[in-house]
């Protein structure tokens, strides 16, 4: 135990005296949370929609008025009147407007005749987010437009009532679990990847190898020191990130204690995985080169930024084995739903099992020679 502690002590003393390392592993994920949270989370507003009225009848005017009312209030879009479709299409292609609402010449006649009147939304589908926002707004607009002036007292039409069991979750809060795991991963990548290989290349490990320390003690020492640093980074994100993202009651002791348990399990899993990947590597360029790819391969399939249900089958396989998946799921439960540990017991069990397996494999592969 004394030898394991010696490795941990050495690593932690160096970490404490390296402000750059502390900033990189703790502050940068917070910056990422804020930037990504607000870059993706906002409601889309002030899209420019050209209106081409080729009909000019009363129903068309009513439709335009409703359209302008939405533009004035919700401000999802602003209307730009066009006298002809050719000019509007040219402006759509050059990016001056985001879509065109086209009211055809026979629209009023079809409305009055009850002959399925049609209007068209011509959209710039290269921007899926803006196009979807426009489609949604127009669908909502047509519901009151199509409703009968006098509603029957009793109706056979089914209606849907939506009940949200949790308070509104802004995107920055949705992103927080993934960002916590990312902070733990960055710390694991630096400690278990970059510093480990750099120390090896500088000959520091030679100093360990000539002492009577056992293989398992070395691996345990490296893993635990890396895990402690990752836990520190994770807990900074858990507290500061919760405050920044506006999580209710962010400093609740019980909640923080539950989070700490999950942070520890995630830290152990990720640092052990990193050691397994690096155990036979000697070139200091390797961890730097694979950092970005590893980040993508682990982070995005985990459901941190997009629901898993939307992934293709091959990616779901990756999701099933990815330790990020279980860490992100656990943090979502704790951060967004404030559940107890029972709700994430499988996540914790998976992460700990993953840590034991990868650490055992790393110990088997570790060479106690140069």
């Amino acid at each position: 135990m004394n030898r394991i502690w010696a490795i941990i002590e050495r690593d932690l003393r160096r970490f404490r005296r390296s402000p750059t390392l502390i900033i990189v592993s703790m502050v940068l994920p917070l910056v990422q949370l804020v930037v990504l949270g607000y870059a993706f989370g906002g409601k889309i507003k002030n899209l420019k929609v050209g209106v081409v009225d080729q009909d000019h009848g009363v129903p068309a005017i009513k439709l335009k008025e409703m359209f302008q009312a939405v533009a004035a209030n919700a401000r999802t879009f602003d209307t730009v009147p066009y006298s002809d479709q050719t000019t509007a299409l040219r402006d759509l292609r050059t990016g001056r407007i985001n879509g065109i609402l086209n009211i055809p010449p026979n629209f009023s006649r079809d409305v009055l005749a009850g002959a399925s009147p049609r209007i068209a939304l011509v959209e710039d589908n290269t921007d899926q987010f803006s196009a979807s926002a426009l489609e949604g707004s127009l669908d909502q607009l047509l519901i009151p437009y199509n409703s009968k002036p006098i509603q029957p007292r009793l109706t056979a039409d089914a209606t849907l009532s939506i009940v949200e069991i949790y308070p509104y979750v802004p995107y920055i809060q949705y992103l927080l679990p993934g960002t916590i795991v990312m902070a733990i991963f960055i710390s694991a990548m630096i400690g278990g990847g970059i510093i480990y290989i750099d120390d090896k290349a500088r000959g520091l490990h030679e100093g360990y190898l000539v002492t009577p320390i056992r293989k398992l003690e070395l691996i345990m020492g490296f893993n635990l020191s890396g895990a402690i640093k990752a836990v520190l980074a994770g807990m900074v994100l858990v507290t500061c990130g919760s405050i920044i993202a506006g999580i209710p009651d962010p400093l609740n002791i019980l909640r923080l204690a539950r989070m700490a348990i999950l942070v520890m399990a995630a830290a152990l899993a990720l640092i052990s995985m990193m050691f397994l990947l690096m155990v036979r590597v000697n070139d200091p360029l390797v961890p730097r080169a694979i950092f970005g790819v590893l980040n993508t391969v682990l982070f995005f399939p985990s459901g941190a930024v997009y629901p898993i249900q939307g992934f293709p089958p091959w990616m779901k396989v990756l999701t099933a084995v990815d330790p990020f998946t279980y860490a992100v799921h656990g943090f979502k439960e704790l951060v967004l739903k404030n559940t107890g540990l029972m709700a994430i017991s499988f996540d914790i069990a998976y992460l700990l099992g993953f840590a034991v397996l990868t650490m055992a494999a790393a110990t088997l592969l570790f060479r106690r020679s140069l």
Partner: protein
Amino acid sequence: MFDVEVENLTKCFGDFCAVDHLAFNVEHGEIFGLLGPNGAGKSTLIRMLTTLVPPTSGTARIFGFDIVRDANNVRQSIGVIPQAMTSDLDLSAEENMSIFAKLYSIPRDKRRRTIRELLKAVDLDQWADKPVKMFSGGMRRRLEIARGLVHEPKIFFLDEPTTGLDPVSRVAVWEMLAKLKTERDLTILVTTHYMDEADKLCDRVAIVDHGKLVALDSPLKLKASIPGKNILEVSFSEVPPGWEEALKRLPEVADVKSDEHVFRISSNNGPRTTIELMESARAAGIAVTSLSVQSTTLDDVFVHYTGHQLRDTLQAAAGYDSTFMYERKQS
């Protein structure tokens, strides 16, 4: 029983054998030097003896412990200073030592006492709590020497401990090693490519070249083993045919080796050979363009046994490295 027993130790990397059937013993209490150019196999040998690299064949025992079968007992018995400086720059001298003492499971009280004593022994007690990044190269090397002794080993392996140090620091390290050897009853095995270091520091020197043991004895006996007491290095304005034979016929000359226009003449009486040489050159109408006379050194011993100068090998190694770096940059 010897402290170190090496029997036919070999380490090959593919077809290339860095250490080729080396055999020697090191007695208790001696400073044993492994002298050779870069690439001679010194570091590979020391890494095998310190259990860092498994041998291809042959055996070695440290205090009777086999380096392969009893590796952990070997590690407990030895102190090792690798070629690279491996102290943590962000940690203080005391912290660096304390961490290594813990790796050897030394109890707290003994740990503190030993660290204090060792830092004093290497003249770093004033700097105990200062970060190592403030230290000069010589101070760092002294700290590493102290660190290597923290578990009180009886045999100490040092791989080129003075490489990269300035002359003053080198002398300080030599003196420190000699003092520690006496005070702590140490056996020291040191590798070096500095002839003067091996000459002044070592009780016995093994000359290693291309992984093979070329000569082994005390510096004094090694120098006495080659012909002549003095070496004359002389160059001439021109070299007529048969000039080398003429030089060999000069009085007191034991041997002559030529390297283009430079002749190395081994003489049993340097001053007399010099006078005769000057007269012969004048009589032949040849001008002496440079001349130096010196006592026989280990450098001459090295040349005698290997057929080439140590500095040539070092330059060749440096030239190879720079070419390699240039090629890498180009690619």
